[in-house]
């Protein structure tokens, strides 16, 4: 009986957990769906077309590059390109010309990810690289915001809550900001949706909770102090927390596994750094919003953070 046995030889462990990389990626995709639906609800087919286009271009670019690099092309199905495509679309103005959407998505995958060696090797969050490229190339289109027009055809330009506050000291009611019926990017206007799905993301352990927690607490503390100093000039901390890209950026962009630290302490420092940069740009910078640059800036510190925040080995004592 045992003569016909050809058992497999493998290094231990022989038991594996359930999590797999595509599963992690598609869970994030699933959690991004409510924001996509909200974007379509607020901005109609404009939003739908841009989300689909961005995702499709991201996957095509990924395919072309894998082909050129002679890599396994089945990697386009690992879900990471889908996330990049959707995330990029969610951060774009709903009326951005389609050509620019496609270009941004292409840059995101090509320059943001594949030139570094594909999944796992990129230094910066690919979606934000694409967005930064668009911001630099088409500054006007990237800052033209419209009021949510649902499925009507006429769109009225408006300021985002943060832009309104910065340039005309015009404070949008917190309730509106929270629900999302304001001007802004396709998927960033509804803070409550991002908050709910973000908490689910953390509970499912698909992202390191230390990053969003440290970002949000830094922003709250920073803006809280400013608000106490001058409540006329600086808005309620809650306003700073729930407006702009902070929710989406904090939960979904900064926690991008590839471009965030792997050590627990590194994640906390990373989060605090992002929080500080966001507030510095928002308050003292020329732009109303700084989440994108804050995350990209801190991304560049990740290798350094990983190196200097290596956890102390079990039983290791200081100064021995």
């Amino acid at each position, binding site marked *: 009986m*045992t003569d016909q046995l050809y058992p497999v030889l493998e290094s231990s*462990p022989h*038991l*594996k*957990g359930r999590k797999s990389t595509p599963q992690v990626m598609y869970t994030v995709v699933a959690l991004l769906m409510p924001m996509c639906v909200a974007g379509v609800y607020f901005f109609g087919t404009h939003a739908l077309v841009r989300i689909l286009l961005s995702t499709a271009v991201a996957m095509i670019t990924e395919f072309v590059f894998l082909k050129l690099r002679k890599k396994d092309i089945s990697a386009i199905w690992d879900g990471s390109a889908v996330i990049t495509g959707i995330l990029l679309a969610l951060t774009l103005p709903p009326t951005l010309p389609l050509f620019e959407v496609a270009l941004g998505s292409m840059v995101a995958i090509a320059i943001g990810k594949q030139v570094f060696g*594909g999944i796992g090797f990129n230094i910066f969050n690919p979606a934000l690289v694409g967005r930064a490229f668009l911001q630099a190339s088409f500054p006007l289109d990237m800052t033209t915001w419209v009021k949510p027009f649902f499925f009507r055809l006429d769109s009225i330009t408006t300021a985002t809550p943060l832009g309104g506050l910065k340039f005309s000291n015009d404070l949008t009611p917190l309730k509106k900001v929270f629900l999302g019926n304001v001007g802004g990017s396709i998927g960033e206007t509804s803070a409550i949706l991002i908050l709910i799905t973000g908490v689910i993301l953390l509970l499912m352990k698909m992202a390191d909770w230390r990053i969003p927690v440290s970002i949000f607490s830094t922003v709250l503390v920073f803006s809280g102090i400013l608000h106490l100093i001058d409540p006329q000039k600086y808005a309620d901390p809650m306003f700073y927390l729930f407006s702009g890209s902070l929710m989406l950026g904090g939960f979904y962009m900064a926690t991008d596994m590839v471009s965030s630290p792997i050590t627990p302490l590194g994640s906390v420092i990373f989060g605090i750094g992002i929080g500080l940069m966001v507030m510095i740009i928002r308050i003292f910078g020329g732009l109303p919003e700084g989440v994108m640059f804050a995350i990209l800036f801190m991304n560049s510190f990740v290798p350094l953070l990983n190196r200097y925040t290596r956890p102390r080995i*079990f039983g*290791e004592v200081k100064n021995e």
Partner: protein
Amino acid sequence: MGVRFPPPAVLKKKRKTLKTRTFKQGIHPEEFKELSENLAIQEAPLPPKVIIPLRQHIGAPLQPLVAKGDRVKTGQVIARADAFVSAPVHSSVTGMVKSVSNAASPLSASDTCIEIQTEEVEELDFDPAVVVDYQSLSTKQIIDSIRQAGIVGMGGAAFPTAVKFIPPEGVKIQTVVLNGCECEPFLTADHRLMLEAGENIVSGLKIIMKAVAAEKAIIGIETNKPDAIGKLTELCKDEPSIRVRAVKTKYPQGAEKMLIDAVLGIRVPPGKLPLHVGVVVSNVGTAAAVYEAVVKKIPLYKRVVTLSGDALSRPANLMVRIGTPFSFLFEHLGGFSKEVGKILMGGPMMGVAQFNPEVGVTKATSGILVVGKAKPRKEYNCINCAECVHNCPMFLVATKIARYARNDIWDKAEEYGALNCIECGCCSFVCPSNIPLVHWIRVAKNRIIEIKKEVKDKK
């Protein structure tokens, strides 16, 4: 108004007893213990032949004392240990030596093994009626008995037990920690032994305490074995120096550094042994063997083995003679229920995959698992998810060490603490990209040690 709350004092006490201790990080794999945890230990039938490997322990190799054609009795020494860190091997059956030659063992493709043809009528080399009062023995006599019985760590590490009980100059052993965690999935051998031979374990523990002159002892048992915790607590109720501690069911709770952290709150420093913090850790199976060796003068020639796995028709906990071929046990248990993927010696987390089902059981074989064919998993690039960092009980950065190992950067791998890895497998278990992290860390460990040796030899 029917609800009455217990007074705060009672509540506090209850919470205290419910609180189980543990270490930081680690994982919760599915247990699969239900397959065999309620099956009493049965004596396995005598196999027609045994293949006894001479290297069943960590340490120096042995000198065979028998040759082809010799007749040996059960319990007779068949290989002598000359070196200090070593343990002799005894015949596990009565019969004729068929060969002393190289053959496959569970740990090596080719190792010196003694094959013995079993005779039906068993003759013992020891007197089963002997009962020694260990209280009258000196420390040295106890340790000599343990050494002569060939006892090694039976949890899987197989370090010669007598050596462990001789602390270096100037080290005082305060505590003996008895390991009844059995944190590996599937394995239930220790669990059954605690239930069925708890008395022997407690006696063995008292002998160990005397041997190392320790004042107190703690028995650590995972909460998934409440019956074993109950049984040993009952047995130790008149022993003020022995305490039974329930520890959290978490892998690798049974790793000695993790267990010491859990029950004593002491962390053994990197590169150091439990000895350095005044602790000796022994497996419950080892304690039972110590009892047999010291009180009854019976050498270690059989042990409890859990046979389990989804591809084995009938799981069991068997008392097996050392050297019994795996295949004999499979046939005894009715063969396989489905296509076999892997045969493992030990648990699924740290066990060693076998290529030859004819190998013999060793002193460290706590389990033999037969698992069905599984779909091969695709390996992806590391996505820096940090799961390996968040679950490593030794707080290592597995992904970095593996990356350095893959790129031959050995100094960096060492700097990141590769040598501290206990190879528990948590990192590979949680890795969503299916990277064989433990494998790469093992490669790094071997290479670092090799390089260190080369440097030393040059000097």
